[in-house]
């Protein structure tokens, strides 16, 4: 029980946000109207992705000094889990954009930069496939992962601020800013972020365990 409490907490929080996010009241803002509920389902995906990619960079740094295979598997599996959340974030954003902006993909800077930062991690996975030797693969892919991480931060957090975007919260659009979020939304939004981060971490641990069992079987 002492090891599974956070899994239970994550599941309860996600189930709670799925129900409360659709049923509880929200403030009525121009343009957004009821689609503001997407905040509960779209934004937590990015939080989970950032947390998973940070875990991956942490283990990449660790594997450079420890040269342990376990750290390498941890790094790649957290990228795998993070990419799932990144794609989910793009999809939830695109569906929302279809109803608010009229198009799934309207080449908004935020959409583009998010897509590019996911390309970065696909490149990481392809780099891994290109190298056969295990130790070399661990080392080179860890280096690329660390090299790419600051660029992802620039892409997601700095560049969108320099460009005009229609995304809520940018350029005077009514958004998910602190003053737009009333206390009713905070009651759902914060648990949603925590819940999805926990679920993301859970997905990563399961993937890591499967991968290490497969590795053991190969070595025997």
């Amino acid at each position, binding site marked *: 029980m002492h090891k599974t409490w956070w899994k239970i907490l994550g599941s309860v929080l996600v189930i709670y946000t799925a129900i409360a996010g659709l049923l509880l009241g929200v403030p009525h803002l121009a343009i957004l109207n009821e689609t503001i509920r997407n905040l509960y389902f779209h934004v937590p995906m990015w939080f989970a992705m950032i947390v998973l990619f940070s875990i991956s960079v942490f283990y990449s740094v660790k594997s450079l000094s420890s040269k342990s295979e376990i750290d390498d598997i941890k790094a790649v599996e957290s990228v795998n889990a993070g990419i799932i959340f990144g794609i989910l974030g793009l999809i939830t954003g695109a569906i929302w954009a279809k109803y608010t902006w009229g198009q799934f993909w309207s080449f908004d800077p935020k959409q583009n930069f998010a897509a590019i930062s996911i390309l970065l991690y696909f490149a990481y996975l392809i780099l891994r496939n290109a190298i056969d030797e295990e130790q*070399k693969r661990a080392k080179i892919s860890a280096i690329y992962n660390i090299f790419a991480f600051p660029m992802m931060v620039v892409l997601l957090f700095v*560049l969108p601020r320099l460009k005009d975007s229609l995304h809520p919260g940018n350029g005077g659009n009514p958004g998910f800013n602190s003053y737009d979020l009333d206390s009713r939304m905070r009651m759902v939004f914060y648990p949603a972020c925590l819940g999805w981060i926990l679920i993301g971490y859970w997905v990563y641990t399961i993937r890591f365990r499967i991968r290490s069992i497969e590795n053991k079987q190969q070595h025997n």
Partner: protein
Amino acid sequence: MQLAKEVKYLIHKELLLEWRSKYTINGVLLYVVSTIFTCYLSFVSLGDKLTWNALFWIIMLFASINGVSKSFLQETKGQQLYSYILASPAAVLISKTVYNTLLMLVLTTIALGFYTLVFDSFTPPDMVLYYVAVVLGSMSFSTVFTMVSAIASKAGNGGMLMAILSFPIIIPVLILLIKLAKNAVDGLPWENSYDEIAMLLVVNVLMVATSLLLFPYLWRD
């Protein structure tokens, strides 16, 4: 002090090698000139200055991938081992980056001159600001591509990996460069471009710092 001496010596070596064969500079120059001609012949009806600006940067992007990727991909394993014994990894990386920056500067300057010659209507009103963009572009292209070409050469699968690995990293830089160059083409006052210039400098410092931290691990086989 030791580092500065090594860097100076290695840059001298690179320049000497290039001077003897003149392969990279002439090859990439011909590449740029023929690409500009091809673009001119295929897009001749386009009158929009901004399209020409974007096209210039795309041509420079591909030319610099071809030029800079040579720095590590071209060297044999023996050559790399030799410089590994002789010099510190930081010196190797710094010398390659500086050399590539010089190479790109010469190249982009000639390309810009040729570009304005061929496309008479293109000449940006604020040439100084455009040249600042060109200098910053040469710097950023060489810092990013030098490190990525080192990664690609160690992975042992040259050309294709180079493109896949470097594009997602260079796209944000390219967007900033095109924006900065667009300001110059539109003839906006300099105050409007300080954001982009500062951002490009920050990205460059960031890239050089991470490369310097990571390269020693990559270099040691």
